[in-house]
């Protein structure tokens, strides 16, 4: 009986240790990974340290690579970044599948500039792929027609 109780204690002690190990591991994070993720805006931040009065609009007007894929909206908290996705579907899919209509849906429902931009890119991407496929099929059909003649 004593042995069983000791064993039960040991098992529970080990499982307790496991839980504790998990909670400590949850606080592990790599700052280097965060810095790598944010490298582009880090560069922009350093540029603004040297050029304090330069605005986003001025950088955009000169097609600066520093503001490529950078939002023109201020973001003070990650809570603000909560996606304004229509029906929870990524905006680029709306643009990709429904074209201009999808972009319009995202624009009117989400009322969010960045989401609309994403939908627009989806629409453009789908159009480019469509054109390439059209020419590829057309070329293939022309080649096979020529070979049969």
């Amino acid at each position: 009986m004593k042995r069983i109780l000791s064993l039960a204690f040991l098992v529970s002690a080990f499982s307790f240790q496991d839980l504790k190990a998990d909670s400590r591991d949850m606080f592990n994070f790599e700052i280097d990974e965060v810095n790598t993720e944010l490298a582009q805006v880090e560069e922009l931040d350093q540029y603004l340290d040297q050029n304090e009065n330069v605005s986003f609009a001025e950088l955009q007007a000169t097609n600066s690579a520093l503001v490529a894929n950078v939002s023109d909206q201020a973001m003070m908290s990650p809570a603000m970044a909560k996606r304004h996705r229509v029906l929870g579907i990524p905006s680029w899919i709306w643009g990709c599948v429904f074209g201009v209509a999808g972009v319009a849906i995202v624009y009117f429902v989400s009322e969010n500039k960045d989401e609309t931009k994403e939908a627009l890119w989806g629409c453009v991407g789908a159009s480019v792929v469509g054109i390439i496929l059209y020419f590829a099929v057309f070329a293939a059909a022309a080649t096979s027609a020529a070979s049969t003649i």
Partner: protein
Amino acid sequence: MGGNFTFIPIALKRILTGLLLVFLCQAAMAQDFYRISGNFSIKSKDDSIYSLTRGSFYYDLNFKKVVYELTFPEKEIWVLSDSMIFRMRGDTLFEKTEGASIVEFSIFHLILNNKLHDYGLKESIYNLKEVEKKRDMIIYTWAPPMVMSSMLGKVLLSQQDKRLYGLIFLNKDEEVLRKQFFRSYTNISGLEFPSEIVDLVYVEGLEIVQKTNYKNIKVNESGNNAMYNYPIPE
């Protein structure tokens, strides 16, 4: 015998001098911090969209308004007051948002009230459920009251060297909603301030990464009253 009599007052004098010094040191350390300001830079990445927001912040315990003077991407003033957020461009109010009470949980309020080490959870609705020591870290588990456990999840708080290191917010199913890390503490006139805060937020299967850096921190600044008590438009 006479030597003993002279010895006692000298010893007493030394003890009193020592006590006075300790008292003066404590008084100097315990000076009231009521006002804080500085520069900030917030970098974030949400899916494939980056964001950079820069400017200055002002907070005074007497006015309870967090004032952000943004310089990038656009010149704007943000005033966080009680449960409202006001956004102004020039003198024009262009956005007014209602939300939860955010000022009391702003790091500026917590730091000035010496509550950052427990993130103010001690005086919140959360109850301390567990404390565990893991190597260099002490981890506290805070749980919401039973009546709210169907809506709210636990909060894990870790401390390193008695300073707040990390926060993990869980939902009711114990899934991670948000992780926050407080780094690179600096001592400004006796006030400990984390000059870097990293946020990892998990929304709809995406991880939003945000890093906030603070610099040029001023404590108990005497001028600039207009910014600390920025007028809120009617």
